[in-house]
């Protein structure tokens, strides 16, 4: 599998196991309810990944299985020297970093807004989470047509007083278009987690800050932000892992184009596997993606858990 995260024995589990050693029979009994789920997860996620490792050492055209043969690591060599692969990696980084930064920014701003009291707050909250619930494939189609179309799109109509003219967003600014749609889609995710963080602040502390004569701005910077940081980071870590895997919007809006302008890793691998039928190279690219994700997740999770350790308790 992918990310093996090893947890040290916890200092203070909520329901502390009985101090005495469990007998072998008790251990077996306790394990029994866990096993079906564990086996299921291993069979459907770990074994396929092992198979992906195996396929990455094969030359394997999906349409001609009989010509399959072992080629060692040459698929990796080919992938690494492939300009299209390097382009896909670059696009993935560009896309993910931009979207995550924008989402963290808007998500924090909206969370702060929603933490205030105003008329119809729960309705506004419902409106704001809607983009996240809408099927990404459907949303992408609506954006591509009704919103971003050069002649009849709403975006150009709204921007026409500013001289937007008939900008063809998805072909002239394909990456910007994808970033726009993804930011729209993922901001609610960030907002919800950060809002939960804001609302978990203890009112006593805020009250104490006020009593000590702190202004609203000071309280926000010195009290709220340090508390909020871990929630922003949690949202960022989870958001990054999901946004790295973006596929729907690219498939629906640009098909990775024009040319290869918006091809990210998932779309590149999809093309290698199901358009070029090149299973070997697709598998190698898949393995590289997983390794990159492991590296990122390992560092990121350590960062987040570190914050949980120092600041939550």
């Amino acid at each position, binding site marked *: 599998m992918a990310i093996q995260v090893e947890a040290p024995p916890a200092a203070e589990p909520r*329901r502390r196991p009985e101090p005495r050693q469990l007998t072998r029979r008790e251990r077996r009994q306790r394990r029994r309810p866990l096993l079906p789920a564990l086996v299921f997860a291993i069979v459907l996620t770990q074994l396929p990944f092992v198979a992906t490792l195996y396929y990455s050492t094969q030359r394997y055209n999906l349409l001609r299985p009989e010509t399959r043969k072992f080629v060692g690591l040459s698929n990796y060599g080919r992938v690494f020297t492939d300009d299209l692969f390097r382009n896909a990696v670059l696009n993935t980084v560009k896309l993910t970093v931009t979207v995550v930064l924008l989402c963290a920014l808007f998500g924090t701003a909206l969370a702060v807004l929603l933490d205030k009291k105003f008329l119809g707050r729960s309705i506004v909250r*419902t409106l704001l989470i809607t983009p996240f619930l*809408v099927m*990404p*494939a459907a949303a992408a189609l609506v954006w591509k047509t009704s919103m971003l179309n050069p002649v009849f799109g709403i975006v150009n109509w709204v921007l026409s007083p500013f001289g937007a003219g008939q900008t063809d967003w998805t072909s002239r600014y394909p990456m910007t278009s994808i970033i726009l749609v993804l930011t729209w889609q993922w901001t609610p995710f960030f907002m*919800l987690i950060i809002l939960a963080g804001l609302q978990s602040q203890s009112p006593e502390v805020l009250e104490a800050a006020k009593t000590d004569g702190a202004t609203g701005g000071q309280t926000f910077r010195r009290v709220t932000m340090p508390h909020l940081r871990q929630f922003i980071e949690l949202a960022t870590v989870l958001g990054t892992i999901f946004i790295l895997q973006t596929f729907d919007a690219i498939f629906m809006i640009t098909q990775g184009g024009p040319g290869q302008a918006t091809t990210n890793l998932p779309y590149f691998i999809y093309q290698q596997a199901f358009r070029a039928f090149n299973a070997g190279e697709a598998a190698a690219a*898949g393995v590289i993606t997983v390794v990159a994700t492991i590296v990122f997740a390992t560092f990121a999770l350590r960062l987040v858990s570190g914050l*949980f*350790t120092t600041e939550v308790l």
Partner: protein
Amino acid sequence: MAAVDTDRLTSTVERPARHRRRRRPPRPGTIAVGVVAWAVGLVFFFPVLWMFLTGFKQESQASTDPPTIFFTPTLDQYRAILGRDFLPYFGNSLIASVLSIVLVLLLATPAAYALSVRPVVRWQDSLFFFLSTRMMPAVATILPLYIIARDLNVLDNVTFLALIYTAMNLPIAVWMIRSFLLELPKEVLEAARVDGASLPVEMRRVILPMIAPGLAATALICFIFAWNEFFFAVSLTAFRAATVPVFLVGFITQEGLFWARLSAAATLAVLPVLIAGWTAQKWLVRGLSLGAVK
């Protein structure tokens, strides 16, 4: 390998119920905040609203410059969509989602129990193993799953898709249900233990009734992800088992011609999850953060 201190991570779950801010007298800034918030909310909601409206237009009103705002609504597009084999796709989506949710709850509830109430040895490892499977990119498993499905003759099979969705939602469900189990009063569980209830009896009589709302919330969250899933659906299905998002692929090339029909189809596609999501709003954040944040 990352060393993650499970206990600290999960400790957010155990914090006492969320504090409500005390009611303050209305301040002059409140109105300004409200206006800004409503404006931003409407901007974010607008594409969905526009999609909904366009679905009730004639094609000639769907692509105009300037956009048509006032029109006589028509059900023509919905009639056309429903007459054009939309229902089998809808049925497939429903089967794949519901079947996977049933399987997820059956697998995740006992697992969550074994990771919280009476934990197995080294339960943290198992917990993070589940988390890690959720983080694995789908592209890492798609090829073998495709090849296995092809060789076992289950390509384009809705049950196979449901199994994949089960694996996809299992970590979320385990973490979420576990967070609900941790909230149960300890005394009740201990009483059941003293009574010498066997696990199935304890489950049925004591635990399930108490976490039923939590299970419903978990099911709704899993429904959102299963219903909206596109990558596996488009890679592993073609005609017989194709789900709603795959139906929408047919509209990619027809841009500019059938916007109203596209909007009607998109509205039907998103409606079930909108209803589920709006209903489960309260638990959304717990599901999205895998139980770490309430």
